[in-house]
């Protein structure tokens, strides 16, 4: 029962509370025949953040950064080594089973469905396992089957489904019991473009209709761009960015590129630093400039002095931005972008 005052107070502001949470793994390595060396791996190193009800948050970082470990602590699979963690007022690892009724989890790389059984059997079992009221189950199933286009697949054994079909089946399974928060670990991994789009559209819809909080980890930045209003970047167990996607450009000190087409071949155009010409190819030139500065001044300056015919501005590649961020980072505290709430 979630009626306790202590847990509801301020819960509008923070549905998920993570306060200086760490996870340290003891790794034993065999050295020689009998000697064993112990050392500790800090998979998650004092991470703090809060997520409000109904937020859609992307959680990104390179392999081994601690994304999955964080999700596993939030779902109660792993117990944190330190810090405080609450989801809907519940301590996940202490009350894993109680929390399970309120969360939905989709693991991109493994299924929660029963591999050898028809899809519908998994749903029937979820119905009873989660004690979903009959009417609610029928209603949710009908809605999910329609939205995720599962009608023809219900009688097919899960192992015969394609990856995209299975993913849709998994997402439906995670939402049958109306969870308040949905965790997705790499939900679009290995999917084709059409399936990816479909999954993203669906997530937006669920969030809009049910105010479901969504936390997804991904390698695919398009997932973030198209689904999430907020992004958290983790690297080596630490949160290095938390804020709006747009803000990443500034933090990463990334550059945009102005591509100008001149009437004829010219020597590299003269522009005020830090802007600079990075490439010349016949009459076309590429000018890099800080992403945080407007392009207008630069364009005006070039147009005044050179025979400008055409131009375009290229936004920085977010992947490049993040890569740059990882490279530059030297143990700085997490930065919050000015755009974020």
């Amino acid at each position, binding site marked *: 029962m979630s009626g306790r005052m202590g847990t509801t107070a301020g819960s509008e502001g923070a549905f998920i509370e993570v306060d200086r949470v760490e996870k340290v793994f003891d790794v034993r390595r065999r050295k020689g025949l009998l000697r064993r060396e112990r050392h500790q791996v800090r998979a998650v190193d004092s991470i703090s953040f809060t997520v409000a009800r109904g937020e859609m948050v992307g959680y990104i970082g390179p392999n081994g950064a601690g994304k*999955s470990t964080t999700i*596993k602590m939030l779902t109660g699979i792993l117990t944190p080594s330190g810090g405080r963690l609450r989801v809907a007022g519940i301590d996940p690892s202490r009350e894993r089973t109680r929390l399970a009724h309120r969360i939905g989890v989709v693991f991109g*790389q493994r299924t929660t469905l029963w591999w050898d059984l028809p899809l519908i*059997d998994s749903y029937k079992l979820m119905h009873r396992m989660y004690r979903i009221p009959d009417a609610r189950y029928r209603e949710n199933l009908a809605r999910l089957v329609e939205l995720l286009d599962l009608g023809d697949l219900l009688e097919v054994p899960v192992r015969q489904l394609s990856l995209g079909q299975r993913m849709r089946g998994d997402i439906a399974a995670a939402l049958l019991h109306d969870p308040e928060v949905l965790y997705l670990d790499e939900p679009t991994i290995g999917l084709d473009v059409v399936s990816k789009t479909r999954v993203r559209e669906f997530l937006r819809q669920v969030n809009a209709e049910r105010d479901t909080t969504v936390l997804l980890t991904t390698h695919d930045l398009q997932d973030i761009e198209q689904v999430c209003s907020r992004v958290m970047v983790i690297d080596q167990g630490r949160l290095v960015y938390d804020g709006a996607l747009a803000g990443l450009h500034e933090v990463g000190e990334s550059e945009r590129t102005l591509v100008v087409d001149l009437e004829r071949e010219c020597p590299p155009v003269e522009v005020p630093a830090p802007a600079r010409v990075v490439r010349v190819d016949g009459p076309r030139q590429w000018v890099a400039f800080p992403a945080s500065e407007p392009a207008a001044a630069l364009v005006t300056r070039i147009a005044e002095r050179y025979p400008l015919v055409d131009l375009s501005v290229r936004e920085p590649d977010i992947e490049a931005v993040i890569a740059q961020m990882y490279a530059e980072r030297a143990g700085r505290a997490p930065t919050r972008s000015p755009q974020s709430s």
Partner: protein
Amino acid sequence: MVEGLRAYRMIAGMWVRSGMTYRTSFVFTLFGNLVLTGMDFVGILLMFSQVDSLAGWSLPEVAFLYAASVTSFGLAHLAAGSMPQLGTRIRDGSFDVLLVRPVPVLAQVGGDRFSLRRLGRVVQGGAVLGWALVAADVDWTVAKVLLVPLMVVSGAAIFVALFVAGAAFQIYAQDAAEVQNAFTYGGTTMLQYPPAVFGKELVRGVTFVLPLAFVNWVPAAHVLGRPYPLELPGWAAFASPLVAAACCALAGLAWRTGLRSYRSVGS
């Protein structure tokens, strides 16, 4: 506990229903199991075609040991036969999935792939047991009549405890399924022969350390009016349920400890 049994019934029930989709295949594998597990008994029959007794035990008496061991193990295997696959689930990461569901993990692991095909062993053991009870020269008393079903159920519980403890161990060592099999399959085979066949140290080990002797050796000695192994006191024959309860409690504890120390996989 109640929640766990409910979940177990639910999961096992689903596997039974799905298994029944292919009825012919079901009948064939059930029959196959029956024949395959019966081969062990054929081995004992062949042995007795050459000798009249084994360490002083007649054929019906050895058949009684055999049947008690096989039936108990068969029941345990029916209930918890999927537990040895736990290591695989942990290695491939699918164990995580069980942890985010709102029912006890042990019930999910135990009920996984529940199959009535495993009844083959129970049916075969039960049939031999029936024959042995009629053929053996037993001085029946009320206590002995009650002791037979008590022995089979307690024996099954001891084997279930072994399966659970083995599963708990696999949380630490994911490739330990063979160790577990050595105790479960190895144990049931050993118990098919009179204790006098084995060395004293071994008998001591399976009485006081891993109390397999209480599956059938000790209660069967009482039913058949034979001396107890290791000169155990007279009441020991009726101690099987207590031993089984203690085994289950210890196995449950091991399971909880294992689960708490679970560390998942890298992704």
